[in-house]
């Protein structure tokens, strides 16, 4: 990927004028939020291929829209280029200095990560709070929340907590990364007839990859989050292990199954041993300004309505109407676009059949939504791809596991049979209902139900095996 640059302007009107002028001159340009390090304003910048920098400069000067500055951006990233060889990739030099030897806590603005930071801080661990600004929390959230200029309520909340605790805090813009690693795969999955899990992508691609890399570059000794999960070590092999959080009602290990040995080595989950009630009590006792915040259940960027988000973000042509047929091949009606349906869905089919119908499959190749009766939702076997095992190498033989197919911590006895190329078959002892391609199947050890073995992405189920 070729390097990008950004031109900064004093006004939004000038940035948009520049975007237009550059496009008119055949230079691909796109207005985007200017990184905070480049502009203290709420203003926009214009991104372009850095190799065109001289032309951009000359053209804009001549057109009377001189930029305040032209900056190369880091390779494939939204942040400005670092100095030569320095780990000063940190936008805030003070932060980089403060983070050396400290634990970086990812603070979302919610009560859990606030208490996680507080616990480490109280234990005498040097702590630096970091909030990722993904912007895309916008959409619904923006119309619902009283936001300050350039700051989501969440960012302000995290900052307030950090102030209350007396720890350093910084906000990192990662809109581009979030768009690339979370939003785009999310949209692509739905368009391909799958039901994605964006929280998993955000964890594995942003928090535990992108943020972790940066924290390491600053010299931080660890990364902590407010997840309810525990990290332990196998006394024999010395390998790191991921376990369910102590609170069975809050356990979030399902969202963490892609963690690697290297990541687990410097990860901390300070809430792993706590119950949610204790976390809340602790927040109240410390007078944290987020103690009363409600649980967040929705996808942070799509609010409660992912369909509206899809309509907003995908090209209208991508939502093609098509036939809705039953498992026998009979066409029952029409649908407005495959991406607007998920396996297991009952409402909004508009069929008006005497007995309820459910979406049992999505066929992107034929633009078909396949519906069936409740019993057709049950499957005995699922195929997985992208298998990841926390211990490292896959086992040579089938494993007795407890498989969890959705975020609710209910696991079913099954046998995991690893196949070639990261695939696997998951054979359930009892039929499972509504196994949706795109969702994660996370496996826990049958003999040690709290131990996460790993998991994969469901890519198919075997309807023929239905009871």
């Amino acid at each position: 990927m070729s390097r990008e640059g950004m031109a900064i302007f004093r006004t939004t009107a000038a940035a948009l004028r520049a975007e237009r002028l550059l496009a008119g001159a055949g230079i691909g340009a796109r207005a985007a939020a200017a990184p905070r390090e480049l502009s203290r304003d709420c203003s926009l910048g214009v991104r372009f291929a850095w190799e065109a920098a001289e032309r951009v400069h000359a053209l804009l000067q001549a057109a009377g829209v001189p930029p305040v500055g032209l900056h190369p951006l880091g390779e494939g990233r939204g942040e400005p280029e670092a100095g030569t060889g320095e780990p000063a990739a940190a936008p805030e030099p003070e932060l980089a200095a403060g983070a050396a030897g400290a634990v970086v806590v990812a603070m979302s603005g919610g009560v859990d990560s606030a208490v996680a930071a507080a616990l480490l801080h109280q234990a005498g661990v040097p702590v630096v709070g970091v909030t990722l600004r993904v912007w895309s929390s916008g959409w619904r959230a923006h119309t619902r929340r009283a936001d300050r200029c350039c700051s989501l309520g969440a960012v302000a909340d995290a900052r307030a907590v950090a102030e209350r605790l007396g720890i350093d805090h910084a906000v990192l813009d990662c809109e581009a990364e979030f768009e690339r690693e979370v939003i785009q795969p999310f949209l692509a999955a739905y368009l391909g007839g799958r039901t994605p899990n964006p929280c998993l992508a955000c964890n594995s691609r942003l928090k535990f990859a992108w943020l972790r890399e940066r924290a390491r570059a600053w010299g931080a000794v660890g990364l902590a989050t407010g997840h309810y999960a525990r990290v332990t070590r196998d006394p024999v092999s010395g390998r790191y292990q991921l376990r369910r959080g102590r609170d069975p009602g809050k356990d979030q290990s399902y969202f963490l199954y892609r963690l690697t040995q290297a990541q687990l080595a410097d990860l901390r989950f300070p809430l792993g041993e706590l119950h949610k009630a204790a976390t809340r009590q602790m927040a109240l006792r410390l007078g944290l300004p987020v103690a009363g915040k409600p649980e967040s259940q929705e996808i942070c960027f799509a609010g409660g309505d992912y369909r509206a988000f899809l309509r907003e973000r995908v090209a209208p042509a991508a939502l093609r109407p098509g036939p809705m047929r039953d498992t026998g091949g009979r066409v029952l009606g029409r649908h407005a676009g495959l991406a607007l349906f998920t396996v297991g869905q009952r409402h909004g089919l508009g069929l008006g059949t005497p007995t309820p119908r459910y979406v049992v499959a999505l066929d992107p190749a034929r633009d078909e939504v396949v519906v069936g009766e409740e019993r057709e939702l049950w499957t005995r076997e699922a195929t997985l791809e992208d298998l990841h095992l926390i211990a490292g190498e896959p086992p040579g033989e089938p494993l007795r596991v407890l498989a969890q197919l959705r975020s609710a911590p209910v696991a079913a006895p099954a046998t995991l049979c690893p196949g070639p190329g990261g695939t696997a078959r998951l054979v359930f002892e009892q039929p499972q209902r509504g196994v949706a391609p795109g969702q994660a199947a996370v496996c826990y050890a049958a003999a040690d139900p709290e131990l996460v073995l790993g998991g994969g992405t469901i890519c198919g189920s075997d309807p023929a095996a239905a009871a």
Partner: protein
Amino acid sequence: MIYLDNAATSWPKPPEVARAMGDFLERAGGNPGRAGHRLSIAAARAISDVRETLAALFHAPDPLRIVFTPSVTQAINLALRGLVRLGDRVVTTGMEHNAVMRPLRALEEGRVHLTVVPCRPDGELDLLALRQAVIPSVRLVVVAHADNVTGALRPLDEIARIAHDAGAPLLVDAAQTAGAVPIDVQDLGIDLLAFTGHKGLLGPPGTGGLILGERVEARELRPLVRGGTGSHSEHEEQPEELPDKFESGTPNGPGLAGLGAGVRAVMQRGVEAIRAHEAALTAGLLEGLAAIPGVRVYGPPGAGGRTAVISFTAAGRSVSELALRLEEEYQILGRAGLHCAPAAHRTLGTFPDGTVRLAPGPSTTRDEIQATLRAVERIVRP
């Protein structure tokens, strides 16, 4: 119903206008320039599009020197109050709207010298008198491109020459002409062009703006309103950059999106084509009214020297009675009275009663003009 009040506001608007406004609210709901998220960018882009479209329409050299205001009145106030200082001299004409006269009279109370160049009884500006009035100490010359009572057009290129010869910039009130008469700010030498969106540009009310020519130093122009702009947020002083300096507060996004759609509709049909259409209707009206005994039409003879605005009176009939009966008996909507322009009516000799004003628009048909003439004739000669 026959709508002949397009000089007050154009109606009906092209259907794209309402659609663009709805689209803006549904799809571009962010606050332009206040954030970097996509809804904010979408909103800013919609507004930037309108700026570009208007720059093309008026041949403005720099879209960033188009400042949006809630009305042409605000634009005129911005230019007058922003540019004129204590002790300055301003020259205007005897055919101006109150949007010009009232702020000027207020400035006059604050020890600004005002020269009102008289016009002939048919509304034509006396260029010789203007040249005599525009002496080198004049700070600003203000004229309407066309007045709103007779529709008489002023020779802007000659007026600009007179102003520039004295070193004064020219402020043009284009309320009646933007979108209805071709305007090239560079060719005509207009330094400040104040326009409204809801008349000839076919946009919604609540839109307008001021175009700053290259001879006007933005530094010299003080903002009428100061506040948040989304830029220079760390400073408590108003930014100097255009257009932000004069666009504090969240702009009227839906209105501007509607304006953009209106302007595009105008450009699609062509200002020249609209002008020809309206001139033909105006010629028909003038001819028909002149043939009715007792009816007196004001303003220049013929349709060539005016916009589609006709003022008339009828001997023995009050203007309010005429307008009322046109509406009640024939569903013809015109407007009677002084049209917010007492100075113009003094010049025409129609003060304080005023006139009946008929103003066809781009959608008016020949049949509607004929029906209107029959109605006037029946009322005036029962």
